[in-house]
């Protein structure tokens, strides 16, 4: 008995016989050509053309960006050199900034400045109140809460003295290097302190109650 060379040829012959006339039809030939053309173009475009053009465009964009960046960096370097020169020239003035708005609350410094100002202008501080002041600055809770670059420290104090003394005290207060902003003031004449003296002999003492604010830098 004769053995076939390929045992499965007969088994699948019916399929090839069915497909062959279908493939030989002219419409199928035309359609299959066009279909494979589009599919091959799609696959080739996705895996070959796209990465190539993408790389080209990316590199062109990178060259453009880096050129602009180079120009910007040059400008910045010149600006930094100029800033460094300006800093060197005015180096003696910069400690003034930390005295004006210090990095830490330095509440005692503010109080002593006000106290010396009062003393120099012949006035007496009878009351001085400050709100709660955080000793540790730069904590995360504080910086998250306060988005401004500075923090306000409210002050409440009373000074007594003659009209001219209080006036000069106020002028001295607003011209302190440590910045103090006056928010409101109340003036009360203090003639009741000298009840035994005659009306004309009573000194004109004024009590000024001042709501003010001083500041420190928040980083």
């Amino acid at each position, binding site marked *: 008995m004769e053995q076939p060379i390929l045992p499965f040829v007969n088994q699948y012959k019916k399929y090839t016989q069915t497909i062959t006339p*279908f493939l030989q*039809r002219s*419409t*199928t030939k035309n*359609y*299959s050509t*066009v*279909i*494979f053309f*589009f*599919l091959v*173009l*799609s696959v080739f*475009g*996705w895996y070959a*053309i*796209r990465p190539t*053009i*993408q790389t080209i*465009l*990316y590199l062109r*964009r*990178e060259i453009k*960006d*880096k050129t602009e*960046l180079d120009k*910007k*960096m040059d*400008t*910045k370097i*010149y*600006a*930094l050199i*100029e*800033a460094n020169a*300006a*800093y060197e020239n*005015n180096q003696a*003035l*910069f400690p*003034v*900034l930390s*005295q*004006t708005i210090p990095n830490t609350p330095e509440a005692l410094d503010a109080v*002593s*400045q006000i106290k*010396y*100002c009062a003393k*120099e202008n012949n006035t007496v501080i009878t009351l001085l109140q400050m709100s709660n002041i955080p000793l540790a600055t730069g904590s995360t809770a504080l910086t998250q809460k306060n988005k401004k670059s500075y923090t306000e420290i409210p002050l409440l104090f009373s000074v007594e003295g003659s009209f001219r003394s209080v006036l000069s005290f106020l002028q*001295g207060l607003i*011209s*302190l*290097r*440590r910045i103090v902003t006056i928010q409101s003031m109340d003036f009360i004449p203090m003639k009741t302190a000298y009840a035994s003296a005659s009306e004309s002999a009573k000194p004109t003492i004024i009590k000024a109650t001042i709501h003010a604010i001083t500041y420190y830098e928040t980083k």
Partner: protein
Amino acid sequence: MKQNNDRDLFLISVFTFVTVFLWITFELIKTTKTSTVTQAVQELSASMSATIDTDTLNVLNSRKRY
């Protein structure tokens, strides 16, 4: 019937091609428009003024400190 199959396959291949073509086009446009410089470098290269307000510093310096 067979001709309809051919037409369907043809349409599928055309739509596939159009989709891939549009996808490639938009991806290339995105590549062109997207900056290659990182945010940190952009912040680093931001312009700055080199002038120092010495008038204000002098005014502050002239204020009184005890």
